């Protein structure tokens, strides 16, 4: 990450410092560049700054997200009669908290940042685009942890599911969080207007709600395909399988791997979208 001094020397039209203008001596070689910010430290700095916003800006919304999911589970209790469907409802409602915060709120945040010119701040700092996108995405994914855990435990108790394997959330939250946050950031950064970013975030969350919470067997064919396209589906599936008496760990790992792959892809798209939005 050291600076690369170009082989080209300064062009001849550099004027010597004149008269009282300054104490400088005439320059012939390009000035040394300040170092770039490296990926991990700047990612950590963005993450920390974003997390500090949580107290003022995000916690009330996290409550909304959690109550929404708990409410949905209580409603669905009258519809589903235990078994696979109950597992799908609990898993879907838990991942819905992630979708609400990581997809919907992050899309809104980046949409507003882009529209208000706030991206200029980052674009004029020597920070890798990936650090800004990943730092914000990681922070938003972190906000979802308490709500997701609370929803999963409440749901397990409501539907009498075993709590034994809920530790799977340790993988489900970051991986589906990465996939959904990347999607949310990309939507926010690509939307030409902030209202559109909000709309797209809401639509994405509605899709996660309908396609994640409703048991897959009851969906008509084409809607089922849409379900397969949505990144949160694989987080939902992984979590749902972990409620089985004897979970199929191979299948769970496969679903989580799909989640991770989609996460890498969507974060890469979001990083590209950031570069595109930052320099106009």
């Amino acid at each position: 990450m050291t600076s690369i001094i170009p082989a080209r020397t300064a062009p001849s039209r550099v004027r010597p410092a004149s008269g009282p203008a300054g104490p400088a001596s005439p320059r012939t070689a390009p000035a040394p560049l300040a170092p770039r910010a490296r990926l991990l430290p700047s990612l950590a700095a963005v993450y920390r700054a974003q997390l500090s916003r949580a107290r003022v800006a995000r916690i009330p919304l996290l409550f909304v997200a959690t109550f929404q999911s708990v409410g949905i589970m209580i409603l669905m209790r009258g519809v589903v009669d235990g078994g696979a469907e109950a597992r799908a409802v609990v898993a879907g409602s838990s991942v819905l908290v992630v979708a609400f915060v990581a997809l919907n709120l992050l899309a809104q945040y980046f949409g507003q940042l882009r529209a208000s010119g706030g991206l200029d701040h980052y674009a004029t700092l020597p920070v890798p685009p990936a650090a800004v996108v990943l730092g914000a995405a990681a922070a938003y994914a972190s906000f979802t942890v308490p709500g997701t855990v609370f929803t999963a435990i409440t749901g397990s108790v409501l539907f009498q599911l075993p709590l034994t394997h809920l530790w799977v959330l340790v993988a489900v939250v970051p991986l589906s969080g990465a996939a959904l946050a990347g999607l949310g950031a990309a939507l926010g950064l690509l939307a030409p207007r902030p209202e559109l970013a909000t709309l797209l975030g809401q639509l994405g969350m509605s899709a996660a709600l309908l396609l994640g919470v409703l048991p897959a067997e009851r969906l008509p064919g084409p809607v089922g395909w849409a379900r397969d396209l949505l990144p949160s589906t694989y987080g939902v599936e992984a979590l749902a399988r972990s409620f089985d008496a004897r979970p199929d760990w191979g299948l769970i790992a496969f679903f989580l791997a799909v989640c991770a792959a989609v996460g890498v892809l969507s974060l890469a798209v979001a990083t590209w979208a950031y570069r595109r939005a930052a320099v106009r």
Partner: protein
Amino acid sequence: MCAVRDLVKTYPATRGRRGAPAAPEIRATDSISLDVERGEIFGLLGPNGAGKSTLVRQLTGLMRPDSGSVEVLGHDLVRHPERASRLIGYLGQESTALDELTVALAAETTGRLRGLPVREARAERDAVLEELGLTALAGRPLKKLSGGQRRLACFAAALVGERPVLVLDEPTTGMDPVARRAVWAAVDRRRAERGATVLLVTHNVIEAETVLDRVAVLERGRVIACDTPAGLKEQVAGEVRVELVWRERAPLDVPEVAALRPSAQESGRRWVLRLGPDEARAAVAAVTGGAAFAALDDFTLATPSLEDVYLALGGDAADATKGLVKA
């Protein structure tokens, strides 16, 4: 040190939509050429829409020019816009990226994103907040501060992680005199101690006269003059600025007053005239004696300011009174 040659940026015409009328193509910067020397405080002065911000956005790599070259400290920033952030500390007009952070965290995070290790970022943060008198506000979120304080906090963030060039887009907007003084003291210190170069966007003529070494006057995307404030004022040195404020309306029945009217720039009860010394003396004698004096509320005589220079250079009078601030 900073050389701009033939910079052109054209915003394309937009088609009208519901609620938004069609806009014709706009040349925001129209072959601008400038040279800024090292250690200089160089100003860009002009009314709103003159192209000042578009110009600095091109200097800071935020916007690609359609044509022309920008060279800062030997680096071609049109070809390598990503180098701008490693040479230039930029204070833009927007604070939205920092609004929800505390003052201390905004400064520290910005320093870290300028590549400083944690410890150095914190040390510089503390030093800059102390220097600008922000220590007492360090724990407050920017959103909760007044406009001027928020601007000062953003300025603090721009200073953490030192750069040889500072580009400040209207840094003192909304600030009280104490905060303004802190800003200019900090700028001066960086120039005196470290040879920093400062490029300043302003539409405040008084500020421009007092802090700038040289100033480029922009209008409609062109540089219409570039010199020291004193040098610019020499162009209208032979003139005196006469301001007359009438109680209710100008007594046009007095022939001397009626004769002054064609050369006056009127805004409500206030007339501004730029006259030769003899004419000025005659005008003052006419309005302070006889019938006109009863209608006169106040008058001032002054040497010309940069605003008069701007008007004398052919700047649009209507734009000038709206766009330039005199406080």
